[in-house]
């Protein structure tokens, strides 16, 4: 019995016409993807189990897809594979403010989850820029970060337990409702950031916190990137914990100014947007005095309206950058590296030099509070020469991060895009065994290599 007959017999919702499957080929990355054999839309973990068991038996590749927002190709479809869409698994199963958890299915979108939680005064903190479309399962699978990563950390800090279907169809449950658990190997962690290569997450227990309602937003303008980096480090080094700390280079700063109407003092090359929670003491005054020590051109304390306008401008920054595209076929490839806060000043300087050397139109912004730098490269996808140049740039961007004790991937995962960089990171640490361990783990969980093969690393 072939797969299609199997799905029919089991009454599993599937699509197999070309026109029905085309929307599942690509994700938000620049990787083209290939047409799958079928797309399955399971209604629960039992159907996922049946599909995986059959695919494992028949040695058919399986790609899991949530919101399809990956920037590195993690959810791009593979030729002749079965794509499993988790979007029908869209229920919030349980919630307890007192116990500080929410139990949600994998296909629940992050904004919908937070819409539900906020009505109850809580928040699930990971807030990737894709939160409108990205899902619980997808963001766990890529260990997504976000604008508030400096305060809350990335997704891995917030996952209490998972329901997972393994490659052979076995259903396992890890962790659960409690905030701590010490029971040997942490099986929950193994699936975080695994990009669907070890199993398919069908639901998750997630940690939640009361929403922080009050904070003060400040803007600080700098002439030198290293001064901006120093300001952020000093803030953190002296005990402040910003709720968010975003930065923007001149291209991005001009856009923010245009959208928010806030003027830029002359000579400004870098902008820092800082959110300081207001607790017992006026911590933002302390923040202000620290920033003033690091030669800012100007510092502005925003009122409520300005604060909202700047937030809107920052959230819309990527959109606005897209409108700066000038040529047909132009795409923005987003570089995503991270360095320790203390290394931000020097890293930013080196990245700017790199941009100059490559001569690629590139704008920098990112979540500088946790050292996460995004280099947005305007690239013509149809030009082999430009693509090679962009890839080389990304490689050297990774080198800068590694030289400063950081990582080649902060929050977007590896997918197809960073397989070489992943190896490079392990080599740089003189720890190639990491990759061997990863491969061994993969072989245990997925001996037939059916789950998202060719992503993260090649076996």
């Amino acid at each position, binding site marked *: 019995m072939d797969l299609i007959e199997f799905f029919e017999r089991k009454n599993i919702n599937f699509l197999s016409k070309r*026109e029905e499957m085309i929307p599942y080929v690509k994700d938000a990355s620049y990787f083209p993807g290939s047409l799958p054999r079928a797309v399955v839309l399971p209604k629960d973990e039992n159907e996922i189990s049946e599909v995986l068991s059959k695919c494992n038996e028949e040695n058919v590749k399986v790609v899991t897809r949530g919101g*399809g927002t990956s920037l590195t190709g993690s959810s791009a479809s593979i030729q002749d594979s079965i794509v499993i869409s988790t979007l029908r698994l869209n229920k919030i199963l349980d919630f307890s403010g007192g116990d500080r958890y929410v139990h949600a299915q994998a296909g629940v979108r992050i904004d919908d989850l937070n819409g539900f939680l906020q009505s109850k005064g809580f928040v699930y903190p990971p807030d990737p820029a894709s939160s409108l479309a990205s899902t619980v399962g997808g963001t766990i699978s890529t260990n997504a970060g976000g604008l508030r990563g400096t305060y809350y950390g990335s997704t891995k800090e917030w996952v209490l337990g998972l329901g997972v279907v393994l490659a052979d169809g076995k259903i396992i449950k890890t962790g659960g409702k409690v905030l701590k658990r010490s029971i040997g190997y942490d099986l929950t962690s193994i699936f975080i950031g695994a990009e669907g290569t070890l199993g398919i997450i069908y639901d998750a227990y997630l940690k939640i916190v009361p929403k922080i309602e009050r904070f003060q937003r400040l803007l600080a303008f700098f002439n030198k990137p290293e001064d901006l980096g120093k300001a952020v480090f000093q803030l953190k080094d002296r005990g402040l914990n910003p709720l968010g700390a975003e930065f923007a280079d001149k291209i991005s700063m001009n856009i923010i100014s245009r959208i928010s109407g806030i003027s830029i003092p002359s000579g400004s090359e870098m902008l820092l947007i800082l959110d300081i929670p207001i607790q017992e003491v006026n911590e933002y005054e302390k923040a202000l005095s620290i920033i003033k020590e690091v030669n800012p051109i100007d510092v502005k304390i925003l009122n409520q309206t300005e604060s909202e306008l700047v937030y809107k401008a920052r959230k819309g920054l990527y959109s606005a950058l897209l409108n700066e595209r000038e040529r047909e076929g132009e795409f923005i490839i987003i570089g995503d590296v991270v360095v320790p806060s203390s290394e931000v000043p020097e890293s930013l300087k080196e990245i700017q030099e790199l941009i100059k050397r490559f001569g690629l139109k590139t704008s920098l912004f990112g979540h500088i509070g946790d050292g996460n730098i995004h280099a947005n490269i305007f690239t013509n996808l149809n030009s082999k020469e430009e693509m090679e140049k962009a890839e080389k740039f990304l490689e050297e961007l990774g080198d800068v991060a590694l030289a400063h004790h950081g990582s080649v991937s902060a929050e977007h995962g590896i997918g197809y895009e960073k397989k070489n960089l992943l190896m490079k990171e392990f080599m740089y640490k003189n720890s190639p065994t990491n990759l061997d361990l990863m491969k061994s783990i993969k072989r245990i969980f997925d001996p037939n290599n059916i789950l998202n093969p060719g992503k993260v690393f090649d076996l």
Partner: protein
Amino acid sequence: MKESLDNYISRCINCGFCEAVCPTLDAADFQAYYGARGRVNLAKEFLNSSLSEDSVINSFNSCLHCNACLAVCPAGISAGEISEQMKFLAKRKDPLAIFIARNIIKYGDPLNIGKRATFWSRGLKFNDSSEYLLYTARMYQLMPYNSAVSILRKKFGNGILKVFSNIMREIGFSGALLAPFVERKKIEEFNSILINIYKLITDSGVEVRYLGEDEPYSGAMLLELGFKEEFNEYANWLVNFFKSKGVKKIITIDPHTYTLLKFQIKEYVDFPFEVIFYLDLVKKEVKFNGSITIHQACHLERYGEKYRKYNEILSGTRIIYPYHFNEKTLCCGGPDEVLFPDMTDKIADRRYQELKSTNADYILTMCPICYVNLKKDDKVIDISQFISNF
């Protein structure tokens, strides 16, 4: 559309934001073929000649063109606009769509309800020399007949309806044929809404004229169903018709007609008339001690402007907004009623549940199509009814 479809589509970065807010995706049990991003992908493939018209047309026909996608798109594109353009390109049209289009062209009315469209105005005073034309575009009046079509569809199935429409479009059709299936109380309900609207305007000191049986439909459905050339011709006719009647200022009373005449029609024809939404003229502040929720119309939120004049009128009332509000308002599913009625039912039900969950005393709509689809209990009322009553 000012730029080429190819160029427009090439700006898409496939981020999936549009898919996350597209009401038809959920209604189609998450088949991406019926989602906004799927439509962009399919249009791309169709333009590359890798897919046939037959294989993709349902994807575009099912688009509500509610522009929820546009409101969230980082690249500023609308899958609704793409769907509309793709419908224009399609050579084969649905028999029911052809039937409606022919009625519009032949009778100036999708269901040729004739003088039934004027019954609401009996006994009301109009001023033929007023500079303001009250233009109902027959929208509220058509709703009971639309509902009758839905009843027939449920009773006999879509297939029979299509055969029937094939015959009718050849031999001619009159709304009188639907009369036995139209609920009298529905006619009265919609007529009373029209009377409320008339009174709100005239009580605010504005005298209006009304064209009675001569008043034509706006032509909006020609665009929605993919008849671009026919709409172009109809729009020209409409302009000349208004000119021949000496019209200068047009008061529209439903969002579809308002945005069509205010924004969309200008891509096709010079439209030299001032277009007003009736709430602009209403001088009344509502005082209500309870609470309301509002189902904001897609056309008033995401078509060229954010129309929120009603906030002034309702400023003395406690408004509990539903989860999707303002530019994120959720479509009622109405535009799919002709070709994908099941989808309409699911979308309307989802929206109704969302509005109901606010526990407000009243659920206000401001579009006759939304009203029909969301009218699942007595709490749902047209905004004109609410303003009139309080």
